[in-house]
């Protein structure tokens, strides 16, 4: 029997008179890689923002591990095991890779408010940071300033920093945006392997690249104008020209291959 991790129940989110999400419901169970697709402005990022606790839904509820997490807020939700990344790569320009990844490790260990012990002497967290960095192939980069990394490495550090929270579920908002198409596969492989190694049970990806979806997703959720219009396995999704036409506009010629 599959275990339900996250449930969006009739989630509605409005900005003034504009309804960004209207009554969106779906479940995410353990072991899934769910791709969220839809045209620009369909509400994909709003969905991620609402599920991750950044926005309070106007109606409906968000249930994580069987309990409502509505109104819990980002940091508490992150500590409970629901992490996320942002569409724009976010690394701290003044930090080294090691420091950047350590922030979440300290938060998870409940040590954010330890004021008088230098961060460098925490052995357990240092090992944790190394393990996470190694999972992302960043072990040789620990002392590099984040600002001098390549775009792809920044992406990986960004996501690695969230995975030190050892989340059960992570929401990734366009993890491969801004990456050259040659590198996308490599980033995606690294990311999925690291997530599995670090105990992530399910992933939600907002993704435009149909080839990546065909290759990695186990389920596709389609949004259009704030409403859920598709929720099906990838092979069914790619065989349904009507759905493809609504959500993507054109059928990628080699996605079915």
């Amino acid at each position, binding site marked *: 029997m599959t275990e339900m991790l996250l449930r969006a129940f009739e989630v509605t989110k409005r900005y003034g008179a504009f309804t960004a999400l209207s009554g969106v419901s779906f479940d995410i169970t353990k072991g899934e890689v769910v791709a969220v697709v839809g045209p620009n402005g369909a509400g994909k990022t709003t969905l991620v923002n609402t599920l991750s606790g950044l926005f309070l839904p106007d109606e409906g509820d968000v249930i994580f591990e069987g309990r409502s997490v509505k109104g819990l807020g980002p940091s508490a939700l992150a500590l409970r095991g629901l992490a996320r990344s942002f569409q724009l790569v976010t690394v701290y320009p003044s930090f080294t890779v090691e420091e950047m990844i350590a922030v979440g490790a300290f938060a998870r260990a409940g040590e954010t408010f330890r*004021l008088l012990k230098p961060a460098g002497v925490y052995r357990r967290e240092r090992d944790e940071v190394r393990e996470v960095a190694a999972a992302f192939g960043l072990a040789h980069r620990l002392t590099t300033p984040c600002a001098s990394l390549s775009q792809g490495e920044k992406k990986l550090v960004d996501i690695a920093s969230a995975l030190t929270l050892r989340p059960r579920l992570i929401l990734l908002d366009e993890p491969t945006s801004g990456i050259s198409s040659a590198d996308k596969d490599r980033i995606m492989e690294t990311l999925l392997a690291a997530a599995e190694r670090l105990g992530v049970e399910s992933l939600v990806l907002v993704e435009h690249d149909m080839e990546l979806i065909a290759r990695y997703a186990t389920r596709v959720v389609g949004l259009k104008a704030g409403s859920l219009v598709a929720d099906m396995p990838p092979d069914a999704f790619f065989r349904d020209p009507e759905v493809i036409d609504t959500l993507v506009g054109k059928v990628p010629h080699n996605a079915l291959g």
Partner: protein
Amino acid sequence: MKTTLAFLAVLAAFAAAPFALGPYYTTLIIPILAYAIALIGLNLLFGYGGLLSFGHAMFLAIGAYASAVMGAKLGVRSFEAQLIVAMLASGTVAGLIGLLCLRYTTIFFSMLTLAFGMIFHSFLFKFYDLTGGESGISVPRPSLFGASHAGLSKTAFLVGPFYWYALGLFAVMFLVMALVVASPFGLALKAARDNERKTAFLGVPVFWVRYVAFVLSGIYCAVGGAVLAVSIGAADPELSFWTQSGNMIFIIILGGLGQLFGPVVGAVSFTLLQDALMANTQYWRFALGAILALIIIFAPRGILGLITRALDWRRR
């Protein structure tokens, strides 16, 4: 390692100062130590936390008035007791207004801290029974570790026991801050400065991290204010005016924002600069303003930034 060496060098320089300079210049150094202590705190908030307060002169004044009221009105001469009351009073006030001010960041935070600073300034004027109104309160000589040093002249007390006391206080406050900045807390504070949203999603309660930094900075300013009041012999309302807050920020920028030694380098250079300018022209404010503008444009990391850059260049 480098930090330890630099810290020892700074301490050695301050320790040598009374022997190398006469009593007059030594009395000038005590305010430097006082400002350095206060600004170490403000640097945590502004430099590491990215929150520009235009009201921290208030906490400087709270420290000064705590010392003055304890000594002059309540007859408590023990400087240790005065310091504890100063820290408690300032921590409490910071704890209350921090709840409100930290709902905002950026310019709105600056404006709100300025508003509270102005209220406090007018409070000092209004409640003259307690605060002495416009003229303030003169501060009687405190006792240090129970010793009253009654046999010493005013200058002998200041350049003797009180100088070493202030230096010791500075050393302790500096070391504590060095630990705070390097701690997981310091990391979280800097992370929130660089990207608030991302940091929240790393499980950091950003509001409370900033709150702790705000209260700590208030406590540091109060300790600096108490030392300052003894060295100038009075607590007066001008200490809390918004331009004073502006000067405090100026000194941090001058020394080097968000760098551990920034406040002490800034306090030394500012005092020397102001002293030299005032000796040579009555228009020293213009010169200070021009220097501030030049620093902002050409050396945003202050004097320390210039030194680091020069060293890097030589190494190359």
